[in-house]
């Protein structure tokens, strides 16, 4: 019986997958966004002339062409995939009208006269003024066909909802490597999130200005189904990727507070040591009664300096306190 069920599952999956193979290269959208499609298709009276024709006369963009050839989207892309090679006209649209009348002789004459020979750029797609969604569509058309799973949550992500386009972060003309390099991540994020940059000026902070921790260690720039575009489902899970010793599970848990580290910590920066949201003992006194004290008591410095000097396993522990309870002192 068990074998039959397994065999049935196997057969069903096999048939589904084989059927799916027939449509592999034709991943089609559910109702195309026609208005954007019209924007990114370019002039209908223009023809595609190919990168060689675009560049043969003036050579002003030879470096860009070389960069694209060297990138994974250029000549690296195997023709067998059926995916289009990326060249000038993939994004800028058909270029026949832009280079109409341009000849090597005219370019040479202009150069001799100290002039730059300009293409008729107005006949190309006005990329700069496209809506962010249309701009991103140029990239997404290929990246959905190639099953780019880092974009799984792109459409619902904070960036897409806030009209951020792919080209706002990925400089497609900067070189062959279009991914944002580790050294550049935080600078790029801070250009739109200066309020977060300000928190990294505070005395206690993660080493983000030092470029040893970057924004994308915790947040997914391509969107995520979780709060604040976190890479993990919960704040705790995100923090304990590095601070695993605090992750638990423990026999004695600190109620539910450790499920959201932000109850006590400010992840970007804080005036207080250890990224604490509020300085101890006030941090703990927000929820807990302070230990016994009076106007004649000399134990204030013991009980009201840093609570974690004694409650040193405040994130959870397997060892009970002297009373047998879970007070995180052992």
């Amino acid at each position, binding site marked *: 019986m068990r074998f039959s069920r397994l065999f049935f599952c196997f057969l069903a999956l096999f048939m589904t997958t084989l059927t799916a193979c027939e449509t592999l290269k034709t991943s089609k959208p559910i109702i195309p966004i026609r208005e954007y499609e019209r924007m990114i298709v370019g002039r209908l009276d223009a023809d595609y002339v190919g990168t060689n024709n675009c560049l043969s006369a003036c050579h002003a963009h030879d470096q860009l062409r070389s960069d694209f050839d060297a990138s994974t989207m250029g*000549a690296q892309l195997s023709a067998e995939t059926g995916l289009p090679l990326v060249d000038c006209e993939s994004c800028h649209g058909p270029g026949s009208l832009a280079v109409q009348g341009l000849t090597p002789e005219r370019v040479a004459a202009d150069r001799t006269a100290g002039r730059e020979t300009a293409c008729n750029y107005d006949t190309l797609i006005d990329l700069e003024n496209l809506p962010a969604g249309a701009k991103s569509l140029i990239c997404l058309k290929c990246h959905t066909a190639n099953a780019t799973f880092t974009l799984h949550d792109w459409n619902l992500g904070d960036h897409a909802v806030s009209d951020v386009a792919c080209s706002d972060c990925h400089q497609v003309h900067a070189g062959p490597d279009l991914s944002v390099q580790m050294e550049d991540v935080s600078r790029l994020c801070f250009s739109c999130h200066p*309020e977060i940059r300000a928190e990294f000026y505070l005395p206690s902070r993660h080493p983000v200005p030092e470029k040893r921790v970057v924004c994308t260690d915790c947040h997914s720039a391509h969107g995520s189904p979780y709060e604040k575009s976190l890479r993990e489902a*919960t704040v705790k899970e995100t923090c304990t990727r590095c601070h695993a010793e605090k992750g638990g599970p423990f026999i004695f848990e600190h109620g*539910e507070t450790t499920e959201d580290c932000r109850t006590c910590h400010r992840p970007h920066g804080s005036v207080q040591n250890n990224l604490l949201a509020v300085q101890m*003992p006030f941090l703990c006194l927000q929820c807990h009664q302070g230990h016994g004290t009076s106007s004649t008591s000399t134990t*204030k410095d013991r009980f009201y300096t840093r609570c974690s000097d004694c409650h040193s396993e405040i994130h959870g522990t397997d*060892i009970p306190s002297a009373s*047998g309870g*879970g007070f995180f002192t*052992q």
Partner: protein
Amino acid sequence: MRRILTVLITVTLLCPVAHGVAAAADKPQEMQAVDITRPTEGSVALGYRAIAPGGSEQADEYEYLHDAATFGANAQLLAFPHRFHLDVNVRNSEDTLGQLNYGFRDLLLIDAVHRSLFHNVKNITLEDLDPAALDIRDSGQDYGLQITLDDVAVRFNAPRFPMHLYAQGSRFEKEDDRQLRFLGGSGWFNNATRTSTARRIDWQTQHYGIGINSHLGPIEADLSHWEKRFDVKGNRAFFDSYTFKPPAGPASPARPPGEFPHNGTPEFKGSANTLKVHTNYTGKLVGTATLSKKENKNEASGAEADYFVGAAGLTWMPVTKLSVFLNYRRIARDLDNPDAVIIRDRTIPAITYGNSSVRDSISADIDTYSGTVRYRPFTRLTLKAAYRFEEVTREDTEAWELIPDSTTRRALTLSGDARPAKGLKAKIEYTHKEVDDPATNVEANRLNKAKFSLTWAPMPSIQTLLGYTFSREERNDPVFADTEAADDRDVRWDSVLASGTFLFSEHLALTTSYAYLRHKIEQEIAYTEPAFPFSPQSDAGVPYESEAHNYGVNLHYSPSDWLQFNTGVSHTTSKTDFEPNSPDLLSPISIASLSGVKIKETLYSLSGDYALRKGLRVSVDYEYTDFNDVLNRSNDDVADGISRILWTRLSREW
């Protein structure tokens, strides 16, 4: 789940074979003729970094405080079909960054990143009016942690259609000594001996996973399996001789003297299976779904935590002016901790203490529904309205007095983004949030938050930014274990940002910035008197405030292509304080005097870059940091420090 995963991977692996057979019957495709010649580009830099620290290491929190030769290299190589990019930056033996990308056609991609840094950690001096209650075992010891982060991702692409097999791994390592402060003596009030000692740390966290993804007709699917390990070397647990702890009520029996463990660091093990499915990204209608099942286990105590995460989203763009985004997320947390724990004396196992009725950890189901509508009436105006509803339903809360069975959160956010004129951009956002039965006193019942920012570039050479964020939170009658506050808790956040960039000429640019951050709380706090431990006293309306100002100026001057200068100053003042009112808390010393912080930190930087012939370049960076602990209290966690760093480099570019 594992069985399904195995079957699916096997079947999907057969796809390229099946498809290849089908493709062989078709007319064979011509291989693209490729002729790429691209010279190798790169640079190499050698240098020397001299550091002169003084006082506390807090001026250099993330610096390894030793002079060192430095090395940097960058290389981009295209020897078709191989593509290779390497970036290496070594500041010293403990502070490195390396990034490697390798591609073979579009069939294989490898990304690897290595990072390491040194974190200086302070040895905090414990002080007490009664020195007998202190046990300092680490006087004068320097602490710091060597931290290493490694990430690697390998992706194979099937040659005939878009199917990927991938593997990813990451490793996080912490090593060296840091301070451990704990409660020694009897571990109870009768002999509360605050103790500090060194803790040897050698912790390693590893995540590694494999996955597969491809089109499955109208949808795309990704299936992955992850493993997580937290391994502990160094001190797993400490043992100390504890003195007798007297009985203190039925819930607090006596503990015999003995050598018991404390401050243990257990090892953890976890795994996750994740399925992601989405439709084509480019349609008017896009659907996504993520299902994940995660299991975590404490290898020492057997405590377990299982999580189920389900998320689904739908984007609908009926017309390009109007978009609707809908999300649903469910996180089901199931915690299972042992009912009893017995701790034995290290040498005489018959001496024990423990707990035979450990409180159940809190399991919960969290359902979150959210929707956003985006409307763009004109090209230069975007309006958004977002609503979010979240319900937390908890189990096993009977033994947890302060934690409610359920919490409901509702939030409405309205925002606008306008570009009324060229170079002018304004953003405004308002959020109102209501919470029923907040989980803690820290969570508010009501929140109102407003955010405004204006970016103005009146001319290409001037760019300015002004931003203000204000938030006000109210919590009805905070509750404590034995009392309830009579007054509400009020919280206020303020943040002001201003910056300007001025290009005086193509050679000279000035950037100025100012940031102000304030966090203000006013709430009742509770404490007990020794004679009446279960009759708490209240101190109403205690204000707490944390505040920081940052001023920054940066000047960039490049008189020619071969010479550049950069200089800047950043000054931050920050302080935090609270003011109790009760005489019990003010004499013989105010408890506020034990924890206030006031810091002034100034960073001066100067750098120059001079291009010699044949791609040779000389660079000099100098940084001076003054970390000033204004209050100069000996037992807090801040202290004065100065840092001077001089870094000279000679580099060559190809």
